[in-house]
């Protein structure tokens, strides 16, 4: 080393000193929620983050109509692919009190609660959303995770179950069928812990709403065994739609509305209510801290709760609509949709379904760890 050594050593020491010194400057603190402050008439720009396949897009879509009606310039991004993944993306920003330009985004119940508890969300000002007050379905007014609906406004509800290629796997009718070796390597599962594992539990005869930590772990082990045997092709957010389209997967755990929109790709894709039952969930619009335009955000929420506007969305996405009055509209204009089990599920249709269970605080950590270990391969 000879001549090089002193220089190298000096460099290393400099680096170390710099590192230690700068480490003293920590990162900023997180934001506290607070309530949305409405300012005058809604105007300006609005950035919305939502899940894919969740709105009627296009030239005559809801976004364009909203822009026309209010003069607000909307940037609608479909970058919520998976709750945890989205959390991972925005958490560093929200921690600093920023939202990355977003004024509204849409996440599932349990994620909304987690974000709220961390101080990342603002309370909505109910004065700005009278339509929601008036038209929200009674069954959704006092959910467990947000009893006063302080920070969340439902976007759509839906069911997690089986999405199937009827031409390639016509006999798949229950979650247990997904473990049939006949379909080895052609089955996709959702990455969402609270979606997939309870469904797997039902295959074993356990009621997810009464499940113990042990039940969760056993179900996770079953999935792990399926990974090792090569049964499961991918764990996905929304990408299972791609695998089903191309035929690389023949059946997947997926979401009720997706199948309908996928039929444009391939008419052989269908949502099937599993024999064991499905999982019921809601996705919610929330306003993050640091939202640049909360006034416009509330105007958006208000707009989509007008039954006429909601009917347009419901017709396209085919998820369970949270707005009262849409069924009446469909009975006149689209009678088949009024009968659709996907948009207006009857009690009979969802008799075996369970609401997405909240993991208890003590179960959450070990179960999440175990699940992540399976996801990581």
């Amino acid at each position, binding site marked *: 080393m000879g001549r*090089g050594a002193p220089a190298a050593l000096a460099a290393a020491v400099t680096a170390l000193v710099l590192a230690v010194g700068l480490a003293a400057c920590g*990162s900023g603190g997180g934001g506290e929620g607070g309530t949305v402050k409405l300012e005058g008439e809604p105007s300006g720009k609005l950035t919305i983050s939502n899940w894919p396949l969740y709105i009627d897009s296009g030239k005559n879509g809801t976004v364009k109509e909203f822009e026309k009606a209010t003069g607000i310039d909307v940037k609608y991004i479909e970058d919520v692919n998976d709750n945890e993944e989205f959390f991972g993306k925005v958490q560093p920003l929200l921690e600093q009190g920023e939202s990355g330009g977003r004024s509204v985004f849409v996440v599932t119940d349990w994620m909304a609660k987690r974000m709220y508890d961390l101080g990342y969300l603002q309370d909505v000002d109910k004065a700005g959303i009278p339509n929601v007050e008036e038209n929200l379905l009674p069954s959704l007014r006092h959910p467990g995770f947000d009893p006063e609906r302080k920070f969340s406004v439902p976007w759509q509800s839906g069911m997690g179950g089986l999405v199937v290629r009827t031409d390639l796997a016509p006999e798949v009718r229950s979650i247990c069928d997904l473990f049939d070796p006949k379909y080895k390597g052609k089955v996709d599962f959702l990455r969402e812990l609270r979606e997939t594992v309870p469904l797997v539990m039902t295959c074993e005869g356990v009621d997810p709403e009464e499940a113990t930590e042990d039940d969760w772990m056993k179900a996770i082990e079953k999935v792990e065994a399926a990974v090792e045997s090569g049964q499961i092709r991918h764990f996905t957010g929304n990408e299972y739609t791609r695998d089903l389209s191309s035929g690389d997967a023949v059946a997947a755990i997926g979401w009720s509305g997706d199948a309908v929109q996928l039929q444009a790709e391939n008419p052989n894709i269908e949502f099937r209510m599993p024999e064991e039952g499905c999982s019921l969930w809601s996705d919610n619009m929330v306003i993050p801290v640091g939202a640049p335009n909360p006034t416009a955000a509330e105007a958006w929420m208000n707009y989509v709760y007008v039954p006429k506007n909601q009917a347009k969305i419901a017709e396209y996405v085919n998820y369970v609509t949270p707005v009262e009055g849409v069924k009446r509209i469909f009975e006149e204009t689209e009678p088949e949709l009024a009968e659709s089990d996907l948009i207006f599920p009857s009690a009979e249709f969802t008799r075996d379904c369970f609401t997405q269970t909240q993991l208890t605080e003590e179960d959450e950590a070990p179960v999440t760890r175990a699940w992540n270990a399976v996801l990581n391969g």
Partner: protein
Amino acid sequence: MRRGRSGGAPRGAWRWLREHAVNIVAALVVVYMLIPIAVILVFSFNDPAGKYNFTWVGFTLSHWGNAFGIPELNSALLTSLKLALLATVVSTAIGTLMAIALVRHRFHGRRAANLLIVVPMATPEIVMGASLLSFFIILGTPGLGFQTLLIAHVMFCISFVVVVVRSRLIGFDRNLEEAAQDLGATPLETFRLVTLPLIMPGVFGGALLAFALSIDDFVISNFNSGTTVTFPLYVYGAAQRGIPVEVNVIAMILFGVTVLAMGATVWQQRRAEKMSEVRPDQEAMPPVAIGAAEAA
């Protein structure tokens, strides 16, 4: 030499095969390398029914016509180009200076400097991206975005520029510089009027390499971009939802432009060599290897 067994034609054919086996394998490999490019090109003419561009449906030129019709794609592309341009300028300047120092001067710490240059090239990208992310997280500022991307890109480009310019400098004929100085030029003038123009091809090659690396970078950008979207990051996001055909079109355009740029470099190199009558060099590093080592 070995005598084969009896039998005329088959033996001849076998021998031909053996002699040309290497060439055949080489040809197959080349075809293999070009297959995906062909697929990307073909599918840029596809006319899919829905969102997914997997199966061939029908031929259309409409996506080529609409190449710049998707706003998010355009802004991602623009971001990538801006980033690559800035990163190239900065890293080429820094890298050229470093290369000159390393080749021309003896000084304490040469070994250490050498090491500092080589190690980043040998570090897995994920480690570089992750450590930079750790750095920015703990520091808190600047927020992840264009600035952090620029910092990261310059960082990984410097090493490559140094290596390319260095290889050009090594084959450089010092006599020219000495001649200039004998004729009264100051060291700075010599550098400006003699050295720099002659190493320009190397500098340009390094710049080209830096540009290519920056435009193509995915892993490090994925970790350090925050909400800024570069072209590869756009493709990554779109991969989950369905990649529009326009992405294939843009990829082919980028490809075409880079091919032309490379062709221009090669042409320019040959001209420079002929004009200055420097010994034809052996350029050892990719991708500037093309053109320099001529037998004639």
